[in-house]
């Protein structure tokens, strides 16, 4: 009887062992393939013909350094389709090892545990120093106090200034430490009915909204973990009221993109990506051709500084990756390698997430190459400062929904001239209820 037991045990072990070896051998036959998930085009909604250039270069470098490893990516997924494409891959358990994450997906994916917690990898890697990243960009990849993604490309918001209009009105270009009062004063001066048809046809701002004002007034809208919102805080109230004051100057008229394109608006918030796109060939001849323009920092509120929002394109690793070390190496190559990061200035429209790269002279000369002579390049130092001090979106799961709710309500408050203080108190209560659900 015992003999039979042993025999059967051995047979079972042999079968399982065989399956294991077969599975292992099956894996060994192929070269290691690292899947990379990316979308074509720019994350910043500007035309981008060179979206694969940087990635291709990185892949070439990586494959040279790691023989036997091939990196595969799907080309042709547009940014608009990327979220759905990635979600479908995720559902089937076929997500790429390393992938780009959209800002609107990052919180959801992190909370689901599909993004690898990078902290153990960071701790193990002695050559990796998070200090090299812009602090704001690095923190964008954190969720619930853990690092789930690394920044790849960063774009701060700047203030577009129509220099021709200011010159025409005899107003000096504001310096980088300008304030709300300066902005309001200029708006007052430029907002007028030029052709005398009884309607205003020259305005101070376009698209300058309450959030831009909130950021520059040192206010926080949400607690960082999303447990509470502070919409009724006095800094927020001040900011909303300030936007209300500017709106009042326009006597209920809507300022449009056409007004801006025609050169009739003095200021517009503009991302660094848009700045670069429309300052360089071929797009500079398509837009904003009738006037001279430049970018400066956002005006500071009474209780704040010249800050602006910073958007970051993140990249992460799948929790289920079978090639953790390779994935980490590749992620590091894309986000931490100075050579690849410099490529962002050559082939993309954003800025590098590495301080040394963005603040280098090489960056200034690369950006200068594409610009018209005489156009000043934003200095690396100023750009770096704007990025470093920039405000990032809080990372919690309900942020997107809570923010869109707040945004539409505040717009309605401004449009309908509601009492700002009490309306914001009600809104704060509503959003807190949603957050605490």
């Amino acid at each position, binding site marked *: 009887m015992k003999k039979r*037991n042993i025999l059967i045990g051995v047979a079972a072990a042999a079968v399982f062992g065989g399956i294991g070896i077969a599975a292992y051998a099956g894996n060994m036959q192929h070269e290691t393939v690292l899947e990379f998930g990316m979308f074509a085009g720019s994350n910043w909604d500007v035309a981008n013909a060179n979206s694969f250039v940087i990635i291709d270069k990185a892949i070439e470098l990586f494959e040279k350094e790691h023989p036997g490893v091939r990196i595969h990516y799907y080309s042709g997924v547009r940014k608009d389709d990327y979220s759905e494409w990635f*979600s*479908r891959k*995720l*559902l089937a*358990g076929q997500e790429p090892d390393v992938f780009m994450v959209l800002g609107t997906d990052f919180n959801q994916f992190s909370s*689901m545990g599909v993004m690898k917690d990078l902290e153990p990898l960071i701790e193990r890697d002695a050559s990796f120093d998070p200090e090299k990243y812009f602090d704001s960009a690095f923190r964008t990849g954190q969720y619930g106090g853990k690092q789930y993604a690394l920044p790849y490309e960063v774009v701060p918001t700047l203030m577009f200034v129509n220099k021709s209009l200011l010159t025409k009105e005899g107003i000096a270009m504001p310096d980088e430490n300008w304030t709300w009062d300066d902005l309001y004063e200029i708006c007052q001066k430029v907002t007028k009915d030029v052709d005398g048809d009884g309607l205003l046809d020259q305005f101070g701002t376009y698209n300058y909204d309450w959030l831009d004002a909130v950021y520059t007034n040192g206010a926080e809208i949400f607690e960082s973990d999303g447990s509470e919102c502070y919409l009724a805080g006095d800094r927020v109230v001040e900011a909303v009221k300030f936007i209300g004051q500017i709106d009042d100057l326009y006597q209920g008229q809507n300022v449009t993109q056409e007004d801006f394109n025609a050169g009739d608006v003095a200021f517009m918030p503009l991302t660094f990506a848009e700045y670069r796109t429309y300052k360089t060939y071929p797009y500079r001849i398509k837009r904003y051709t009738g006037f001279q323009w430049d970018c400066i920092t956002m005006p500071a509120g009474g209780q704040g500084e010249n800050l602006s929002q910073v958007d970051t394109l993140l990249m992460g690793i799948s929790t289920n990756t079978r090639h953790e070390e390779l994935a980490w190496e590749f992620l590091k190559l894309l986000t931490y390698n100075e050579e690849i990061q410099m490529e962002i200035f050559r082939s993309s429209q954003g800025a590098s997430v590495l301080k040394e790269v963005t603040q280098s002279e090489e960056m200034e000369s690369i950006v200068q190459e594409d610009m018209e002579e005489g156009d000043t390049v934003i200095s690396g130092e100023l750009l770096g400062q704007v990025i470093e001090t920039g405000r990032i979106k809080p990372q919690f799961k309900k942020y997107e929904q809570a923010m869109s709710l707040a945004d539409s309500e505040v717009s309605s408050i401004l449009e309908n001239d509601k009492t700002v203080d009490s309306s914001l108190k009600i809104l704060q209560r509503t959003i807190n209820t949603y957050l605490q659900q």
Partner: protein
Amino acid sequence: MNTKSMNGSKKQNMESEAADRRVAALQGAMLAVNFAMVSFICIFIYMTTERIRARYDAREFLDSVVTIPADPRMNLIICLSLMGMLVVTFAIRHFWTSLSNSWTVVTLLVDFIVCAAVIYQLDFNYNGLLLLAFANVIAYVRDGKIKLLFVILAVCGYLVADYNLLSIYMPLYRVVDYIRYYPANTQQYLSSINSIMASLNMILFIAYCIYVINRQRGTIEEVNQLYHELQTANEQLHEYADMSERMAQTRERNRLAREIHDTLGHTLTGIATGLDACLALMDISPEQTKKQLELLSKVSREGIKDIRRSVNELRPDSLERLSLEVAIRKMVTEMSQVSDVKIYFETDEKHLKFDEDEENAIYRVIQEGITNAVRHGKANRIWITLKKVDGEIILVIRDDGIGAKEIKSGFGTKHMKERIEMLRGTVTFDGSNGFTVTARIPIRWGETYD
């Protein structure tokens, strides 16, 4: 009587086989329900995932879930293979009747691990599998400690493997989220399948437990009845023993009476008749009378010899054949051998030769003392000394047992006391340090008859 009991046990065997089959059927049903439940969850999640992908609802769906399984197809394959292993261990236990106990425990352990793996794979959405593992333990494990271990394992597992508890600490996918993807009426349909199967598993488990517990209670009652019968038989045996003892006593009395009649009666009758003749002859012929008296003296001496012989026959076996010292040593050796107690016997007398009743008493007291030390004192060592001091025999029996705080009669001490007092001796007992019996017997420098 023999054939009757054989028939009974055959019937019992058949009954227990039928009961085993019912237990097996319930276990099989539970396994089937669990298999169906796990398959349902895995297949449902896999099919829903495919449906979501086909309809390009993926991103929107993700917004409504906590998280998703890493790979639904792999999940399905892994879970079904693991459930297959449960079927295999079930089959091994049922069809491999000669499976040894330790192998059964191994299969149960495998079951536990497999169940835990499936529950983990299903992100704790269904922990009813633990009931299945638990049911097997109830049926197969007889050893109290192992059973307790398994029960603790199962209970802890059932408590810890709770979705609501664990989802606080880590993102876990929910079947409910996948059900919610469907239109409302389909949702109801799916939810009811889910809950009906979970309830069915629970009901089967409860039914199974009740059945097994009832069966075990039946066994306990059976054991109680057997025990009762055994006790009755025991009592009967006691009665038989008493009766045979009484019969032996009667036999012994009859023998005694016969001996007395045969020897003493015969001799005394002869002497009485001879004395009558002497009375008649005395005046006529003193010479004849003297002769007659000499004859009578001879007859009476013969009688004494006869009585001594018959008394000898009544003495204990050893004493009858051996000297006192040899008899005691023999007894000591025998007792040591049978009771695992070390007994040391010591005497400074070279010739232990006393009267028969004295020897008897000494022998019996020693016997009794050893018996007491072993039975009541739980002694490991016993020391016996026997010496003569100032015309007295001093017998000390000391042991290293538990002793006794109070000396109660009936601890075998009463007989000893009686025996010694019959010889005008004294006996003292001391239970403070082990147990010590000290007997003093005055020696009669006995009348010798020759």
